[in-house]
């Protein structure tokens, strides 16, 4: 495994002490880390999930709209942040791997380091108990 960029290491360090769920990916979209609060929402421990490609994480949690229609990967905020390199916000439903349906709100943004190096993207999200 190649050395991660310092911005990615520091983002993980910050995420590891945040109570807000955080999900971190590299520029190719590969999941690098999610923190313990995210484990509760996703229904799986990161140690069990491990690193995974965008094709997998964008589908295994079965993102869907309020009508239950599956959302294409390219519409997910984190994928938009990755592909269009801009911050994005959205809300939708997911099936945690603990088989629990949850409505979540997501803000995703690209991580751009010094010299305009695009080094990854991060999503912070909240489980919305309102509906």
């Amino acid at each position, binding site marked *: *495994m*190649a*050395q*991660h*960029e*310092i*911005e990615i*290491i*520091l983002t*993980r*360090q910050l995420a*590891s002490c945040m109570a807000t769920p955080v999900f971190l990916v590299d520029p190719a979209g590969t999941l690098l880390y999610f923190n313990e609060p995210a484990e509760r929402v996703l229904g799986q421990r990161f140690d069990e999930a491990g690193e995974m490609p965008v094709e997998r994480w964008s589908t295994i949690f079965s993102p869907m709209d309020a009508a239950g229609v599956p959302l294409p990967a390219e519409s997910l905020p984190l994928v938009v942040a990755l592909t269009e390199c801009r911050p994005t916000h959205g809300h939708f439903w997911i099936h945690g791997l603990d088989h629990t349906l949850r409505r979540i709100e997501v803000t995703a943004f690209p991580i751009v*380091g*010094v*010299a305009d*190096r695009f080094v990854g993207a991060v999503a912070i999200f909240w489980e919305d108990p309102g509906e």
Partner: protein
Amino acid sequence: MKVVVWGTRGSLASPGPDTARYGGNTSCVEVRADDGTVLVLDAGTGIRRLGMQLPPSLPRVDLLLSHLHMDHIQGLGFFAPLQRPNMDVRIWGPPSTTLDLRSRLIRYLSPPLFPVHLRDLACCLTLQEIAGGHFDIGPFKVESGLVCHPGTTLGYRIEAGAASMAYLPDHELRLGAVSLDGDPAWISGFDLVRGVDVLIHDAQYTAAEYDGHSGWGHSTTDEVVRFAARAGVRHVVLFHHSPDHDDATLDRLVADAARLAPPGLTVTAAAEGTAYTIAETR
């Protein structure tokens, strides 16, 4: 390859009778290849004496800045080669997220902080902006990478033939490593130092002193030994000494740190004037 230490101190120059053995000048290290090519690592106050002993016949010198904190650039205006008309001086260093290297240097090398403007120096000056990556200088293969320290900060790995050294003068391992025992991909600077013959590394604090200084950008002596051991370094040189650590204190710290080292890892503390010779052919 010959590595000579010209400035060992972090934060602030601290000359005086209590620091005479390890030295009071701030960060500066010379790296000289067997063919005479000279690299200078950082321009702390130690660079003044180094500059004076570089012969006027030397056609080129490359100065690699780790970052632009004052203790790493304060000697720059007093580096004699900058005032030699036929000298080719190349300064390599990082931009910030908003300013290029030239704009950042001019903040110091211009009135009122300094009487001479960067553009008025007599030498043939080239600025090379880097934010990581590989480049060659003569026989040297240089790898640079951003490491954990406030602002944009580079560490360097320098190889010439079979000889290798790494220079991470300001580096906070506690924040930069998820775990020193875990996956090396998550340890800041690991690829730069992996397996080098000599590692010159920030060791400003004792473990007790680190409390209250989290986020200030520096490592503890014991962490540096663990990091070096994990990366298979042969000789780690404790560097960027605290201005508060006198010679007697440094004697004690390096002895304590050396006791933590596994077989095969040598631990010493940088002292002004010390030279390390590393064979380029084996």
